[in-house]
């Protein structure tokens, strides 16, 4: 189930270089959301909607939170929206993360602007989630206090060592696995990172769910635009990020 409407921005913050954090009041949409789903936002002046993951869900207040980075003209225009203005959103779309019982141990791995959807899933597991996040440099670091506020353990990595530990999220992940194997790994980030995380998960026989991106038109599975190569029972075919995903079992996609 999804819906569409104009929803008011009730909070806006710039949380890092070119990175914005919006909270929207959207009772009907919020009631339907699961972690890992996304909204499809219409930005005036642009023909296609912009898909953005849902980063925070507050069912009590009927609000969701999205965090995005300016990548081009559409996200730049989106960053100019202010509190009190309304956004045209279609959502929640796609299939979210598969959740285990909340007392299971999980690790979330977020790379750069792939970190926001990890916050929504880590919230569900509270202290049983370890959130590994990686960024190029300290000016891009986001959401670390938010993970801590929901009792997640956090590990922060930067490529240049200017914040947290120097190195890649995959190094931190491999180290965590040596101590204790989680029941599930969740990941979102650049494709190279997702490949490496999937590989580690496979080698350790841990289930792994990854959230993917692809250029979209409809966002609801009608146009077949957002293809991703999938594999099931030895057969390869094109699935669709907006309908079969954006969250996939890492064993079912060919990256």
């Amino acid at each position, binding site marked *: 189930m999804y819906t*569409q409407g104009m929803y008011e921005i009730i909070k806006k913050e710039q949380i890092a270089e070119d990175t914005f954090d919006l909270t929207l009041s959207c009772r009907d949409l919020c009631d339907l959301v699961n972690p890992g789903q996304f909204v499809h936002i219409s930005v005036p002046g642009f*023909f296609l909607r912009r898909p953005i993951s849902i980063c925070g869900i507050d069912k009590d207040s009927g609000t969701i939170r999205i965090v995005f980075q300016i990548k081009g003209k559409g996200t730049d225009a989106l960053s100019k929206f202010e509190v009190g203005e309304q956004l045209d959103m279609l959502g929640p779309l796609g299939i979210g993360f598969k959740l285990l019982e909340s007392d299971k141990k999980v690790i979330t791995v977020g790379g750069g602007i792939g970190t926001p959807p990890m916050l929504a899933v880590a919230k569900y597991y509270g202290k049983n989630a370890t959130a590994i996040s990686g960024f190029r440099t300290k000016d891009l670091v986001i959401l670390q206090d938010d993970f801590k506020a929901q009792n997640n353990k956090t590990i922060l990595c930067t490529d240049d060592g200017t914040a947290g530990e120097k190195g890649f999220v995959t190094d931190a992940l491999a180290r965590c696995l040596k101590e204790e194997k989680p029941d599930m790994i969740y990941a979102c980030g650049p494709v190279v990172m997702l490949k490496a995380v999937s590989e580690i998960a496979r080698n350790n026989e841990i289930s792994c769910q990854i959230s993917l991106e692809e250029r*979209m038109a*409809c966002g*609801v599975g009608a146009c*077949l635009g*957002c*293809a991703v*190569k999938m594999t099931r029972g030895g057969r390869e075919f*094109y699935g669709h990020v907006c309908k079969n995903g954006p969250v996939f079992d890492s064993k079912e996609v060919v990256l």
Partner: protein
Amino acid sequence: MADLSVKFCGVDMKNPLITASGAYGYGREYTDLYSLSKIGGISTKGTTLYEKDGNPPPRIAETPCGMLNSVGLQNGGIKKFLAYELPNLEKNNLAVVANVAGGTIEECVELVSMLEGTSVNIIELNISCPNVKQGGAAFGTNKDCAAEITKAVKNATSKPLMVKLSPNVTSIVDIAKAVEAEGADAISLINTLLGMRIDIKSRRPILKNNVGGLSGPAVFPIAVRMVWQVANAVDIPVCGMGGISCAEDAIEMMMAGAECFQIGAVMFNDPYAPVKIIDGLNEWCDKNGVKNISEIVGTVKPW
């Protein structure tokens, strides 16, 4: 309330709006928002004899006031359509236009034969897909090929045959006349215009297929022109499409000569577009004293 019903090649539709092939799947995706029975008809995703994988991604690129796609006719094949999709469409009150495409004439003939005796109302033969290497546009850009395939398919079906034309030709009128001469019952146009976008950072085309089909408001004036030219050149009815994004556009298309119309890409921007356009047509007719929408077809007064 004006009368929006139209009769298009013998098929009664409660309104002239058909959702365009490839933009609306098989009608399953938008029922969270409104009932399928709202729309006049649906043109299904281009269906082939066998399941088709489509092209590698990226398949979508944004353009000023529009988009490119290189989906490449990904679909589950005619058997799946008959077993799974058609029964679902039958539950609703709307005209079913089966959009079919084949790599060879024999394939197209076999496809339409399989639709005999089904509830499909109209066959839309796509001879204009720019995204497949074999067949597709090759049929639609040569008037002899277009005539030959129309003739063969017409002989294999008892249903109204609508041939969908490609705008990527020097004379759309020549192709239209050629398919009319071989028995087409209607013509639909336009399919997408071949286009390209390049990412200037990577110097790579955005589409993995390098080129793709342009649709959306950007193509609207081209579509109106072609529909007008074709409607004036043939005696069979025309279904107009390309860039329609509001009720006024639909009216313009009908004034150019289209008896009904299809909308595609606009729904990606506004999924409620079909409902809004139908409501808008009603309002416009009421305001302008038009009792039946068909009154406006072809009423443009050229200079």
